[in-house]
């Protein structure tokens, strides 16, 4: 069996890739996909830890996180759609009516 530590490292790497993506990418949809990647990195570590501790809390938590992520996709895409109707862009640098 794969040791828990390996899975946790993989999860941390995935989480970091997601976080860096959020910071450097300028397309709202790609930023959002990177957030999903961060959530799924956490899911991975929750499953591994659940296995490590021998209780199901982590597994249940994963289901809840997946449900929340699905809701977030629905709301997030609706908001991005509304922006696209106005501005025809998903580039967050061009969404700049409000500043300072």
């Amino acid at each position, binding site marked *: 069996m794969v040791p828990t530590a390996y899975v946790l490292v993989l999860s941390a790497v995935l*989480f970091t890739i997601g976080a860096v993506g959020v910071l450097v990418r300028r397309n709202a949809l790609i*930023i959002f996909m990177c*957030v999903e990647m961060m959530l799924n990195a956490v899911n991975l570590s*929750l499953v591994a830890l659940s296995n490590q501790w021998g*209780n199901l809390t982590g597994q249940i938590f994963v289901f*809840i996180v997946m449900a929340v992520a699905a809701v977030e996709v629905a709301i997030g895409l609706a908001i991005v759609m509304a922006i696209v109707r106005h501005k025809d862009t998903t580039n967050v640098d061009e969404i700049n009516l*409000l500043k300072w």
Partner: protein
Amino acid sequence: MNALTTVRLLLPELILLITGFVVVGVDLLRRRNDEGRSAAFIAVVGLLLAALAALALGLSGTAEIAAFTMAVDAYALFFKAATAIGIALVVIASVGYMAGRSRYLGEYYALLVFAALAISLAVSATNLVLVYLGIEFLSITSYVLAGYLREDKRSEEAAVKYFLYGATAGAVMLYGISLLYGATGSVDLVAVDQALQASGSSWLLGIVAIILLLVGFGFKASLVPFHQWAPDTYDGAPTPITAFLSTASKAAGFAVAGRVLITALPDFIDAWTALLAVLSMLTMSVGNLIALRQTSVKRMLAYSSIAHAGYILLGLAAIGVQEPFNGVNGLLIYIFAYLFTNVGAFMVVQAIEQHSGSNDLQAFAGLIKRSPGLALMMTLFLLSLAGIPPTAGFIGKFYVFAATVQQNLLVLAAVAVINAVIAAAYYLNVVRYMFFIETEEEKPVAIKPSLNAVLLINTVMVLVIGIVAQPFIAWASESVNMVIAAGF
């Protein structure tokens, strides 16, 4: 615990849940267009009933765990009652504002009721899963509300900025929760504390988990450096929603942060109080300095709202067990006073905005001649925001500042006082415009009756809390005693 007891303990949440669905249903069934009035009426009744239920439970001294995950104690009930009242005010104020701007009003009021439900769940949560769920539930309803004016580009921009920051902050907080679960094998706050103590908790892991959790809570409470969304979202969102985001939603962030840190991580108290002290100083300084150079009053209040998050945070940073200033009671009083003050200030901005279509300082010029009542109310709210007696804001500031002095955090107290002085400068600038700047505009500001009612309630509450402070102080102090005693 039998079902009936659970129903009694969760009565505020059940009322809110039912109200939310009834509001949507009524909106579907109505024949003629009443501009959402019936939906708003039901929402207000439901919110006030929920606030009453929470007050009744709180006054009867209830302290139990319902459904294994929700603490029905005075601390949670205080926030439930306060935020339900605050959201009821926002609903009333929305009636005149939203009617001409959106056609989908039933859902709007239902979402506000559901936001109250989300706050109720979050402030009660004794379980990290429910903490995460409650905060995300609140965030998701707030994203929709911030972007509710689909034809308004600014509202859309507010929503997309709020959403992208919120989703990221939520994921980071979740990672912190998974670390705590990994270290302890449990998600229950008390069990986490016990497991951390038993295992001689690793210092590094605790600090990392606290920082990651604070990203999530700090985002909700708009603490610097997690505040970047706040000015734009507050500026672009519909004004009643701005009032909601800057008060009730912010209160939820502080309430959850308080409970999680005190109950699950009391071992790390030195670490997180130091961290919170730094965050608090940053938050008030950045908020106030940027607010100084704003020319839009709505945006100025947005930055001032960030600065106030810093003052509120003083309460948690200066937590202690000594009477009478244990910090956390200051936090509660501050939030309660700030709720009425800030909703009131944003409502005046809303009245001006509806009258002149602008929320610039210039739109406030000569207000004392045109609408003396409105100008005097705005002055009162601004004095309360600045913390000048005899207003509610003074009581709040006094309690958090006194706690920092009592804990001997003198640098923190000095920074806070300097900030209070800076803040007074830009609040009084608005007063200067209202009283002394001449304008050609002569028409008095027409105020919708619903908005007028909200303004009056807020004015009365700001004065009542400021003058007869004792019952409110006693209420807040009793509300925190249990949480503090359980944590230390």
